[in-house]
Structures are given as C-alpha cells and as structure tokens.
C-alpha cells in the first residue's frame, strides 16, 4: 500500500520533471519570502516607533529645546501619523527607493547645503553590506570545509580521544563570548606573534590580498563561533546512518572505514548538514556586531546598531529587510540543495 502510494507520487511527478518541480518550489518560496519581508517591515517599523524617544530627541540630547526638537521633526516628517509614514516609506521601497538616512539629512541641513540631494540609504548601506559579505565569505570558505572535515573525522574515530577533544574544544569555543575569543586570538596572533593585523580597517580600493589579510582575524574568530554547530551536525548525521544496512554491507565488502564514511554515509547525510550550514551562514551575515566592533570592521552590523541608537528608522528598516532576505534566500538555497542531494528526486523512475 505504502509502496503503491510512493509510486503514485513518483508517477505524478514524472511528467513535470525534477527541474519543473524545483522551479515551482523556488517560485512558491520567493512569494512567501516577499510576504515575510512585508510582515518583518511592519514589525520593525512598529517596534522602532515603540522605543522611547525619537531621532530628534536622540540627536539633540538633554539640552534640547522643544522648538529645536519640533523643527527637526517637521523637517523629517516625524510629526506625521506613523501609518502614513509607513505607507510613504513602503511606497518608496517598492519603487526601489529606501529613503535617506535621518542622520545624513539632518547633517546636511545643519551646514546649510540641503539641496535635496541626500545620500540615500542604499548608497550608505551598499559598501557596508559588501564588507559584511566579504567577511562572511572568507569565514565560510574557512569554516565550512574545516567543520565538515572535523565532523567526518569525529564520526570515523567516534568515542575516541580525538572525538572527545574535538567536541570539548568546539563546544568551549561556541560557549565563550565572541569578544573573548576575539581578544584571545588578538593576543596570540597579533600581539605575542605579530602575524596578523589586529585592526581590520578596510576601505575601498584596497588590494584583495591586503583586504584578505586584514579580514583574516575576524574571520578566524567567527570560524571558532560557527564550527561547533556544523561539526556536531555532520558527526551526528553520519553516525545516525552507520546502523543502516547499506553501511553494514559496505563494511562486509571489506571497504576501509574512511571510505565507508566518505563514500557511503556522507552522500546520504547531506540534507541535515546543508541546513545547518545555511543557518550558520545566515548568522554570519546578520549577527556579527560584536566581532565587527572589536576589530573595527566596517560591516553592516555596526551601522545597524548605530542607527537603532539614534532611531534612524530608514536605515534600521533597510538593514532588517536585508537580514530577513538573507535568511530567506539561504534557507531556500538549503532546501533546494537538500532536494537535489536526494538521488530519488534527481533520478526519477
């Protein structure tokens, strides 16, 4: 009965083919993703408005006169109803205009150059976002192969000293605060042994190699943060399969243990590993504020925190949308890769 039902599902898929069904999934997820982004934008807008004080109060500080506060509010349109402001912002965003930063606008008006040509949020975020992606990319390039290899070795030598040591080390590194890991790395790799620069003040037009060198220390710190999760999932996913009949069969064919794991277990363990990798990559894009601060790395996290501090709503909104989009896209990629890693779906009957 179950077999018959499974056959039916396969048969139903047959005429459409794997590519079509994957495209359908992508389209569905993207549509859902847009809906999620919309809801996220409402939530963020509401949350930022619920915070006590607004941009005018934050920028003018304690000595603010009511007149000055009012002037800035009028200038930025903060005196209008929140729903109206949200609709205006949304209308702009839909046309690709994320608005302009309050801070930029305000600074411009102070120096009397408010000619209407303000630095847009997009222009402001773009270089920061590129930096964040660069850091995330370097980290992923180190962390993913490292964690998966460690996971495979830990599964191979499970319950050995090596396995336990790996577990203890990765767990301690994930349990330590990020700034602590960062300072430990600075101590050993920049201060005691001056191999790497402790400041990551990268700027436009830097040579790639310089950029890489300056990014290495924060990337290593983040590697320590994300390795444990990926490594432990790799280990668990592989060990979970070791009791399967086809693994026993491989052993009974006299295949050496390393090959059993890499060739027979790993291809079947990919789906959960891919999902955890995606989750950690999303973390690298959205959650690295502390590391950026320690290394003075000009990423999007710092910009985001600064903007929240001064209630710079357009920037906060834009950052949140980028973060949400990163999560959605990475999870979508992970889902598709998991589907494609299943030979039953790749090679229908």
């Amino acid at each position: 009965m179950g077999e018959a039902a499974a056959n039916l599902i396969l048969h139903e898929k047959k005429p459409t083919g794997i590519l079509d069904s994957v495209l359908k999934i992508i389209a569905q997820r993207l549509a859902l993703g847009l809906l999620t982004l919309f809801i996220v934008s409402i939530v963020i807008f509401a949350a930022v408005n619920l915070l006590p004080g607004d941009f005018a109060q934050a920028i003018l500080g304690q000595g603010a006169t009511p007149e000055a506060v009012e002037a800035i509010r009028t200038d930025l349109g903060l005196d209008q109803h929140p729903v109206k402001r949200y609709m205006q912002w949304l209308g702009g965003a839909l046309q690709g205009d994320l608005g302009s930063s309050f801070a930029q606008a305000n600074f411009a008006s102070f120096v009397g150059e408010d000619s209407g040509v303000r630095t847009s949020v997009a222009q402001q975020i773009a270089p920061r976002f590129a930096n964040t992606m660069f850091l995330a990319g370097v980290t992923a390039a180190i962390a993913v192969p490292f964690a998966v290899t460690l996971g495979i070795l830990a599964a191979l030598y499970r319950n050995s000293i090596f396995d336990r040591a790996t577990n203890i080390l990765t767990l301690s590194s994930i349990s330590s605060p990020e700034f602590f890991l960062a300072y430990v790395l600075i101590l050993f790799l920049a201060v005691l042994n001056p191999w790497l620069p402790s400041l990551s003040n990268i700027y436009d037009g830097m040579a790639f190699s310089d950029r890489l060198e300056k990014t290495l220390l924060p990337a290593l710190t983040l590697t320590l943060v994300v390795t444990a999760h990926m490594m432990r999932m790799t280990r668990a996913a592989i060990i979970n399969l070791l009791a399967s009949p086809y693994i026993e069969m491989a052993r009974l064919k006299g295949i050496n243990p390393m090959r059993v794991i890499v060739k027979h277990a790993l291809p079947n363990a990919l789906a959960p590993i891919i999902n955890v990798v995606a989750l950690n990559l999303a973390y690298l894009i959205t959650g690295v504020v502390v590391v950026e601060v320690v290394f003075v790395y000009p990423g999007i996290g710092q910009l985001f925190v600064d903007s929240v501090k001064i209630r710079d709503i357009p920037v906060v909104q834009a950052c949140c949308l980028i973060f949400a989009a990163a999560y959605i896209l990475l999870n979508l990629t992970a889902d598709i890769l998991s589907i494609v890693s299943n030979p039953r779906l790749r090679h229908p009957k």
Partner: protein
Amino acid sequence: METDASKHDDVLVEMKGIWMEGRSDEDWHPIINGVDLKLRQGEVLGLIGESGAGKSTLGLAAMGFCRDGVRISKGSVHFDGIDLLSASSEDKRKLLGKRIAYVAQSAAASFNPAHRLIDQHTEAPIQHGIMTKAESEADGMELYRKLRLPNPDEIGFRYPHQVSGGQLQRAMTAMAMACRPDLIIFDEPTTALDVTTQIEVLASIRQIVEEFNTAAIYITHDLAVVAQMADTIKVLLKGDEVEEAETREMLSNPTQAYTKSLWAVREFQRPAKPAVLTGATPVISVQNVTAAYGKIDVLHDISFDIHQGRTVAVVGESGSGKSTAARCITGLLPPRIGQVELDGASLPLDYRKRDRSQLQKIQMIYQMADTALNPRQTVGDIIGRPVEFYTGLTGKARRKRVEELMDQIELPADQFIDRLPSEMSGGQKQRVGIARSLAAEPNFIVCDEVTSALDQLVAEGILRLLADLQDKLNLSYMFITHDLATVKSIADEVVVMKDGCVVEQGPKAEMFTPPHHAYTDLLLSSVPEMDPDWLTNLLQERGVDNIGDAAVGKMT
C-alpha cells in the same frame, strides 16, 4: 591451532564452541550457546530457526563480524585456516568482500541509495585490487546476464530505487559474486519477496552457486526454501543447535521433537463448510468498485461477496490492490465508482459519514501488531477503549468485559491486563489486536496479513484462534494474505487479485484444483514445497523463462 584446520584441505569454515552474547542496557545476555559449524568447499548449509534463534548472528560470526552490541565470548572461527577472531581488522577486511561475501535480507535497504548499482558492484573488486573498473563492469554485466536480469548491459547504471525488489536481490547476489568468493552468507535473501519473484531469485542463486562451486550458508525460516537450496540443514532454537543432518534425511526423518513440530505446522486444515444458500444476503458485498489514489485508478471494477461465518481469502502480490480493497470496505478510501453493501443495505462510502452501528460491525486486525498498538497504553486500556466507545460499559462492567475478551484470546487477564505492548511477544500482541477488534462486537473483520510478521508456530496459533472465534461468534473474515499455505488452511473462498483486478474467484476446493486461471496457476506453482527436488522438477517442467515474474510478463 591453525594448522589443524588447514590439514583437512576441503574444510572451508570451522566454528568451534561458539558462544555469543548481546548487550541490552548494561547486561550481556546469551544469543548463541556453544554451536559448532563446519562447512566444506562448495557445500551449502541451511541454517533454520524462528526469529530470535540467532541465525543471522551466527551467519555473521562465520565472517568474523559482530553487529554493534554483540560479542563472541567463547569459541573459535577459522576460515581456510585463518583464525578470524584473532586476525587484525586490516586482515579481516582483506578477506571480506573478496573471499567471503554477504547477501542481505533487504536488498532495497542494503544497496546505498546514493550510488548506481554498477558502482557498488565494482567497488569491492577495485578496492581489493582484483580487477580494474572496466573489467569489473564487464564482469558485472556478464553476471547480470547469468542471473537473467532484464537489460543486463543497462540495468547496472540505474540507482537502487529505479529497480524492483526481486531484481535488486539478484543484483546483490551478483555483487556478492563480484570477486568470486569462496563463501557467501545468504541472510534470508527471499523473505521480503513475493512468491513469484522468490522462485526466480532462488533459481538464480542456486545456479550461480553451483556454477562457481561456491560454499554458502543459507539462512532462512522457511523450511521449503531451505530444502531446495541446502545440502545439509542445521536447526537452531534460541541459540542452541537442535540437530543437523543431510537435507533429505532431515526432511524425511527428523529426530528431535522441535524439528518435528516445525514440520507439522503446515498440516492445520479446517473442515470444509457447507455451500452458502443461494439467495442468502452476504454480510459484505463489494459491487463494481473502482478506486483511485489521486488521479490514478488502482482498483478496477472489483466485485465479491463475503457471507456470514465464512472466510474469504484475498490473495495476490504486493501492489495487487488487496489492502486497497479493504480500505474501500472500511471507508478509509471512498471508491470512485461502485458501492459496498453491509447486510444488503448500502453503506456510505466515506467512514466519516457512517453511523456508529455501521462502524461497529466492520473491524480490522493489522499486519504489524507492533505499530498497531499504542506503546504507552496497557492491554486493559487498549481493549477497554473500544468496549467503552461501542458498548458504553464503564468501570467494573468494562473491566469484566475486557477480562472476558482476554479469556477469548487465551491470554490470562490477571497476568496481562496491566502489561504494555513492549512487555509481550509478537504473537501475544497480535492476540491483543484481535481482542481489540472483537471488543466492538463486529460481524465482519478484515485481517490484513495478520500472520506474515510471525513465526510459523506462532502464526499457526493465531490461525487456530481466529478459526475458533469464527465458529463461536459466527464472524465473517476478509483474510488478506500473500501466503497460499495460509489460504489453504483457513479460507472458505478465494479471491485472486492482480494489478487491481480480480482474476479469479470461487470456493477454495475449486481454486486449488485445476484447471486454474494462468495467473492462479503461476501463484500456486511458485509456492515452495518440502520436496527437495521441487525446484529442480519445476525448472525442468517449465523452463527458466516460464517461472516467476518472467512468466507474469508474458501474460500481460
């Protein structure tokens, strides 16, 4: 020590005084108690016993291999003079796959889903350095041809899920042959297959083992199968050797009481019942039912009647629509066309639209008692819930009724009423499943492969119980099974299904006497018999291309 074994140069495997233990929680409990085993080159030893007898464990031990949580506590295993228990894992790996190979029970689970068949086939020869990839691929195709797989040059390039169960089992036999081993362990290789598929696999295995003069240990619980395959038979019971003898000797003249009881199982036969009165209203009448999963029809215009106090056996292979027919009767799958009548009155097609008395009259017993019983409820609750639901009894009255029901299924209530399913054996759980369906006081029970997960002796007990209950309570059964021996022992009428159609139906006596429909004939002829010459004779009579699935293919 080793030289001792190698002196008799034709002895391939020698196991002496093997004691094995398995770990559950913190304790080691015995699995094999001091069994000896000797196998000569080219000889086939049949290892039989019920589940839990330790057959597979012993078979794997002959390869020097223990599953996790199992250990060999005493004894020695020599393969061609090599002491497998003291050999390093490196040395053992050099033998495994190359000189000793293994064929597992479920080929579907034992082929890696991520790789093509041919790549798994060539892995051992390449890794052991016996052949290059190209040589091994060519050899693989040759073996596929010998084993009569369809499209032998192409089938290897498929993934396991793209190949049927019987074909996979033959591909696995080919894989075991890849390095031309001296010994193959066959661990229930045909248990999961339909009879018509089984016969082809049996013929293939026997042919190839004879051709390459390979020694084999053939593990099975099916006596008729082992009679076709083995030169000698060893009977195991709960880890003890009962007896060992040459096959013909063992079949004609078993010495031990346990062996005799195994042989006796198939003799249970119910007396024939008088013919149903013409014009009597059937309890259940399935009329021109066509049903579909999604858009695809899986049942095509089937009709049959089930009369009061009678058993209708519905037979056919997996995927033939037997269980689907039951789902239509119970209303779980409303038919697309046609209707189902209960006592002459038309039933709503969907079970959600049936009233309580209609639901009450039709009950089910499932194949896997393990999964059909709630593992967190006691026997008293499992049976008590339908008692309360259908009869409204509560408190003491409910308990009394549960005790009556437990009495009917021959489980003493004082011992079993507070037990959880995990504290009972398979047969006991199946009895609880029966009591649960009886609790509703039904007229009609669907028995879906109720004995196929059980050992023969236990299954026999269940069949007798069902027969007694039928006589006492005047029940009607729809008995879904693929096992024709069960049909012979319990059915009054037989419905044969194939590809969602009824190919033949009638009283049992008629069905089991020729002339048959071609498909019924094939089913009947494919059931192994205790005669050790059965397979040989059948192959001579029909030829290799007119048995099993190949013959089914010719029919359509």
